[in-house]
């Protein structure tokens, strides 16, 4: 068996990106996994309760100056786990604090050293003043768990510029634990709410009584297709980390989810770096805050059972059409809120199953918005039948390969998409021990009804009512 060899070189700006990636990943876990494959490098972290997973995918030909990886005979990848603390001391913030510019680094070399008994990841930082800083980090051989996410069932989706998202996130108290994202698409609003779940029981009822609602017009979103009344809760700390990194990258954040109790995927990409987060969502147990009444209409966007992410690019024009019909708002207004082509195109690349490597970064914006009927969609790659609901949440790398060998596209990004998007996430939908209700909820959703929480909600009057109800119209009208 030959040992795998791994050697790559990073520019100072890439090194800084690694630093920022590690900061983000370290918010999820104390140990960070590194996976090297041909043409791709993945840094990932999974939190201790296995409810949140973050992965940074680095396209090596864009992100690295040089990249050499040759696998060992028995596997096509190298996987290991390192301490986040140790990694962060290597890839620390180096640019802002250096008084003397000459101490800045000029190049960063990373190498896998597997000679003799001592196996190390060696990082050599070459500085402008001739100093060489060498780190040799111990690592742990592991099988990395990847979160899987079924995009087919994730019908709710929105895309938002990272700077806006950051702006909204700044309103939330650092002490709050949860963030609820709810949609009132019929009223053209989406609401982010921070709250602390614990406060409803026990003596600490009034310890964290602050709920912060940020209600925004869905016109601020690049795209917003969430059914009316869908409301999911995620960990605020996780989501803050996600938003922090996105704001640094200045890119478009895309979230996909379905119903509470099933995972949410947040993704964004820039310059050969793609960040994908899979976050478990929970039902917002506090109180039912319905935005549309029981008889209200569905959201403007008809929930389409999408089969493959390739439809992404068609989504926007379709939605515009609907908007034109329903709200009478001139389509130009909608287009004005569209971000410039740079960020748009990079974000758009996330969901193209075609090799992103070959996708020009300067994907023309008009192409994005040109109307093409759905019927004329390019043929979609066949989707494997979703495994039973009880499928495990995390699959070992090898298992993934076996599962969809037949229809896998023979390119990397196809692989990645498949891996991330083709399998049903295995969290039980029977949330809070009420299987029937959960199932019912899903069914209702599929039939296009709204306000699942309304009926499902088990609020029985014991909960503390928020002192302020969300305004029907937001501040930014």
């Amino acid at each position, binding site marked *: 068996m030959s040992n795998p060899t791994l050697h790559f070189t990073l520019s100072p700006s890439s090194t800084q990106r690694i630093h920022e990636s590690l900061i983000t990943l370290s918010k999820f876990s104390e140990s960070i996994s590194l996976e090297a494959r041909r043409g791709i490098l993945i840094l990932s972290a999974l939190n201790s309760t296995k409810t949140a997973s973050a992965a940074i995918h680095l396209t090596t030909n864009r992100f690295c100056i040089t990249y050499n990886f040759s696998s060992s005979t028995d596997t096509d990848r190298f996987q290991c786990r390192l301490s986040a603390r140790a990694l962060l001391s290597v890839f620390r913030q180096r640019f802002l604090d250096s008084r*003397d510019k000459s101490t800045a680094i000029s190049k960063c070399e990373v190498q896998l050293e597997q000679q003799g008994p001592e196996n190390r990841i060696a990082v050599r930082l070459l500085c402008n003043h001739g100093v060489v800083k060498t780190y040799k980090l111990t690592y742990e051989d592991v099988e990395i768990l990847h979160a899987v996410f079924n995009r087919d069932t994730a019908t709710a989706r929105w895309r938002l510029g990272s700077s806006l998202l950051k702006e909204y996130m700044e309103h939330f108290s650092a002490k709050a634990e949860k963030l609820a994202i709810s949609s009132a698409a019929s009223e053209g609003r989406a609401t982010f709410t921070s709250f602390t779940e614990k406060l409803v029981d026990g003596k600490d009822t009034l310890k964290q009584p602050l709920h912060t609602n940020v209600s925004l017009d869905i016109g601020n979103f690049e795209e917003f297709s969430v059914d009316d009344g869908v409301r999911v809760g995620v960990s605020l700390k996780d989501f803050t980390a996600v938003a922090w990194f996105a704001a640094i990258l200045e890119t478009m954040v895309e979230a996909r989810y379905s119903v509470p109790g099933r995972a949410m995927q947040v993704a964004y990409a820039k310059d050969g770096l793609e960040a994908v987060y899979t976050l478990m969502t929970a039902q917002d147990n506090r109180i039912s805050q319905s935005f549309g009444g029981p008889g209200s209409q569905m959201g403007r966007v008809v929930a389409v059972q999408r089969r493959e992410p390739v439809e992404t690019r068609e989504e926007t024009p379709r939605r515009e059409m609907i908007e034109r019909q329903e709200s009478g708002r001139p389509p130009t207004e909608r287009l004005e809120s569209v971000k410039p082509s740079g960020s748009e195109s990079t974000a758009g690349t996330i969901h193209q199953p075609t090799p992103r490597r070959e996708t020009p970064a300067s994907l023309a914006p008009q192409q994005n918005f040109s109307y093409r009927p759905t019927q004329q969609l390019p043929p979609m790659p066949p989707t494997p039948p979703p495994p039973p609901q009880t499928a495990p949440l995390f699959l070992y790398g090898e298992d993934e390969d076996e599962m969809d060998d037949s229809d896998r596209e023979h390119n990397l990004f196809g692989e990645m998409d498949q891996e991330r998007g083709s399998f049903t996430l295995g969290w039980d939908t029977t949330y809070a021990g009420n299987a029937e209700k959960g199932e019912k909820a899903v069914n209702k959703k599929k039939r296009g009804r709204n306000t699942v929480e309304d009926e499902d909600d088990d609020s029985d009057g014991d909960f503390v009512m928020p002192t302020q109800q969300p305004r029907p119209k937001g501040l930014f009208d």
Partner: protein
Amino acid sequence: MPSNATRERNATENISTVIQDEPEPQPVFTATSSNARQLYNVLKCLNFQSKAQIEINHDGLIVTVEDSRVMQGTAFIESALFTSFVYNPRPTSEASDPPTETFALSLSILLECLQIFTPAEPRQFSNGGQTSNNVFSPAILRSGGTAKFTYNGPGSPLFLTLAEGGDVTTCELTTYEPEMILPIPLRMEELGVKVIMKAAWLHDAIRELDNNLTDTVTLLLRPSSVPSHPSHPSHPPSAPSAPAPDFLLLTSGPLGSATVEFGKQIQILHYTEGYRFSYAFHLIKNAGRAMGLATKASVRGDSQGVLSLQFMIEGDGGGDRDRDRGGVRGTMGEEQGNMGKKMETSFLDFRFVAVEEEE
């Protein structure tokens, strides 16, 4: 209460009248500094322990701070740094030669008193923005006000009179009997290594190794591997015969190891093969502020493992000047520094005792 500071505002009263008011027959020590900021900058470097020992002699002040008996920091403040410096040795029975006066005081409180002066950065909001345009404001002139020290011998407090613009502050700092501080001896005749480099480089290296891998840092010399430095081919090895070894700083712990290898741009003036000693990292970090402020650093280690880090701090705080270079204020500050005394240089010396290496 160790200090007593009062601040009075009187635009018409000038400094000289305040000085006249004080009844002083013949104090043991008086010194006036018109550049309190540099004094502050230098003393701040020693602020890792609150108690400092001050020795007065004819040449200036020697301020010593020690940590755990294995680390000492010393600042040499020459009398030239003061506009006036008068030391009248007391007639004592144990007449030492040369005569010195030693007392201890709380360094952190002395620093707090010196901090009363206007900060280096002009405040935008003061006087409705008028001061930021006034070329005679202390912040622009970077004069830093004047500080007058008076000491009357054992038992008496240290009087500190600070004047800036029309503000006069008088402070009275309790002094303590000096403790016996034995200097950590560096054997100059048995030097294992002597290296001179930019202080910023050493600072960068120490910050690099400040990574929680472990609490010891090892200094060592490694036989040179000249061909392994292709990044600097322009710099030929200076030694004619055997090339000088590489100077390394190393930390190692269970999570991994980190090495900072200085290239050929530092000057290794003296070395003996196989030099290798380890030091407690938290003690080395005591010198961190000095590293950040100084322009040059000299690293010396003897055969017993005593390490001396010497730092040269130039003018109005080398760090400040570097940071401001290019800006309008920066150039004015430099001019001011040149108009005053030429190159007000202070030296700081940090000594460390090596720790046993577990190997």
